[in-house]
C-alpha cells in the first residue's frame, strides 16, 4: 500500500457563470521518503490538487489516504509551502517558524522549542535575519522562511505549491539547489507542484504530468532515474535527463492539442 494515495479525486467550483470542473479524477501514489513532482500548465488545477491533499478543500469524489488515514481536514502532518509564502507579516522570521514548532512540539519545554526553532532557521541560512520581519526580506529569503516553517511542522509529506515561481531565475536556481541539499540530508517525503519542467527533473524521483483543465487528470508517472546526489552542473547533458524532459514536454503538448 502506498504511503500517500490520491484516488481519483474530483473537484468542481461553482461560479456565477456556472460550475467549473477543475479536477476530473486525478490519481497519484507516493512512497515514504519519495520526492514527486506534478508538472502542468498554469491554471490546470495543480493548486486545487495540493489544497485537496492538504485538506484545505474537500474533494467532490475520490479520496486521499496518507499513511493509512483518510484526509478529512488540514493538519501539520501535511505541511505546506504556499506559492505566495503566506508568512505572517506581524511576526519575525523566528516567530513565524516558532508558530509551527510550538504546535508540533507543544510537549517540549520552551527552551528546547526555541533551540529547535533556531535550528530550522539556520537550516535555511537565515540565522542573521531571524529577528527581521517578512517585509524586510527579499522574495528568496521569504520563501526560505516558508520552507523552514513547512519543515518545522515535521510533516509526513511536505506539500510545495509552485514555491519558487515568484522568484527571479537566479534566485530560483539557488533555492532549488538548497532544497535539493536539504532533501538529500533529510529525505522528507515531498509533493512539489511546478510549471517548470527542469525544476521537476532536478528535484524529483518521479514526475506526474497534469493535463490542462477543465477536468484535469494526472498522466502516467515518468521515472527520472538520474542518480543522486544530483548537481545542476552537467546534468542537463545526461541522456536520461533529455529523455525525461522530452517525454514530459511531449505528453503536455499532446494534451493541449487534443483539448
Amino acid at each position: 500500500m502506498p504511503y500517500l494515495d490520491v484516488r481519483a479525486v474530483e473537484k468542481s467550483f461553482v461560479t456565477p457563470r456556472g460550475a467549473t470542473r477543475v479536477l476530473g479524477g486525478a490519481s497519484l501514489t507516493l512512497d515514504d521518503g519519495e520526492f514527486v513532482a506534478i508538472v502542468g500548465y498554469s491554471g490546470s488545477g495543480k493548486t486545487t490538487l495540493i489544497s485537496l491533499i492538504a485538506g484545505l478543500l474537500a474533494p467532490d469524489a475520490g479520496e486521499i489516504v496518507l499513511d493509512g488515514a483518510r484526509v478529512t481536514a488540514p493538519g501539520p502532518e501535511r505541511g505546506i509551502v504556499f506559492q505566495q509564502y503566506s508568512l505572517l507579516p506581524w511576526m519575525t522570521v523566528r516567530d513565524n517558524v516558532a508558530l509551527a514548532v510550538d504546535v508540533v512540539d507543544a510537549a517540549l519545554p520552551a527552551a528546547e522549542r526555541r533551540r529547535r526553532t533556531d535550528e530550522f532557521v539556520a537550516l535555511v541560512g537565515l540565522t542573521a535575519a531571524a529577528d527581521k520581519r517578512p517585509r524586510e526580506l527579499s522574495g528568496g529569503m521569504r520563501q526560505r522562511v516558508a520552507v523552514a516553517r513547512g519543515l518545522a511542522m515535521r510533516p509526513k509529506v511536505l506539500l510545495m505549491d509552485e514555491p519558487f515561481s515568484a522568484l527571479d531565475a537566479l534566485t530560483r536556481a539557488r533555492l532549488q539547489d538548497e532544497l535539493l541539499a536539504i532533501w538529500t540530508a533529510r529525505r522528507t517525503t515531498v509533493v512539489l507542484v511546478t510549471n517548470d519542467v527542469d525544476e521537476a527533473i532536478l528535484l524529483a524521483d518521479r514526475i506526474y504530468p497534469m493535463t490542462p483543465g477543465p477536468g484535469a487528470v494526472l498522466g502516467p508517472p515518468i521515472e527520472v532515474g538520474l542518480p543522486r546526489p544530483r548537481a545542476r552542473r552537467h546534468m542537463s547533458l545526461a541522456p536520461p535527463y533529455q529523455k525525461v524532459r522530452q517525454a514530459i514536454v511531449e505528453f503536455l503538448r499532446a494534451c493541449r492539442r487534443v483539448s
Partner: protein
Amino acid sequence: MTRPGPSRLVLPLLGLILVLGVWTALSQTVATDLPSPAKTWAESRRYVLEPFFKDGEMNQGIGRLAFYSLLRVGKGYLLALLIGTPIGFMLGLSRKFYETFDPIIQFLRPISPLAWLPLGLVIFRQSEPAAVFTIALCAMWPTVINTAVGVRSISQDYLNVGRVLRLSRFRMLTKIIVPASLPYVFTGYRLSLGLAWLVIVASEMLTGTPGIGGFLWQEYNSLVYSHIILSVITIGAIGFLLDRLMGLLETRLKAV
C-alpha cells in the same frame, strides 16, 4: 504633494487671514451681534492666557474646562472601546451573530446623541453617568463596524496557515485574527474618538455639567457671545489635536 516649505505655510496662513476677514466683515455688517475677532480676543484672553484659573463652577480657564471635557470623553470613549471591540470581533467571526445583530446595529447607529441623553438621565438619574453613557453609545459604532470588516477581510492565506497548524481557537485569535485585523480596528478607534468628541458638547449642553460644552451653553444664556466663539475654537483645536494624535499612533502601528 510635497511642495517647497514656504508655500506650504503661506497658503494655510492666507486661508486663515481670509476667514478672519470674512468674520470681521460679517460682524460689522449683517450679524452685528456676532463679536469681531478683535473683540473675541479681548474678552477671552484671560481664559486663554491663564487657562487654569477657577473663579466658580462655570467660570474657569479654558484649560480646566477642556480637562473636564476630555476626562468625560475619555471615560465614554474607553467604555465604547470595551463594548465595541468584542462586538465587532463577534460580528466578524460568526455568521450567525452577524445575522442576528446586524439589523439592530444598523438601526441604532444613526440615532443622535440628543436622543440618547434623556434616556441616560432617566436610567442613571445623574448627569455625569448619563453623559458617559451617551458618549459610549454614540462613539462605539465605528469601532464595531471597522473591527467586523477587519476580521472579515483577513486574507485566506493567513487563515490557512492557522488551519494547517490546527491552531486552537485561542491561538488563532491571538496569533492571527487580532494582529491581522488590527489596522482596521485602529481606524475604528480613531473614528470613534472623533465621534466621542462631537458628542461631548451636546451632552454637556443638555446636562449643564462643567466642561467646554457646558461653558458654551452657559455663556450663550449669559449673552457673552465672544465666549461661544472661544469655546467653538477650543473644541475645534482639541478635536484636531486628538485626530492628529491618533493618526500618528496609526502610522506607527501600520509600520510594524
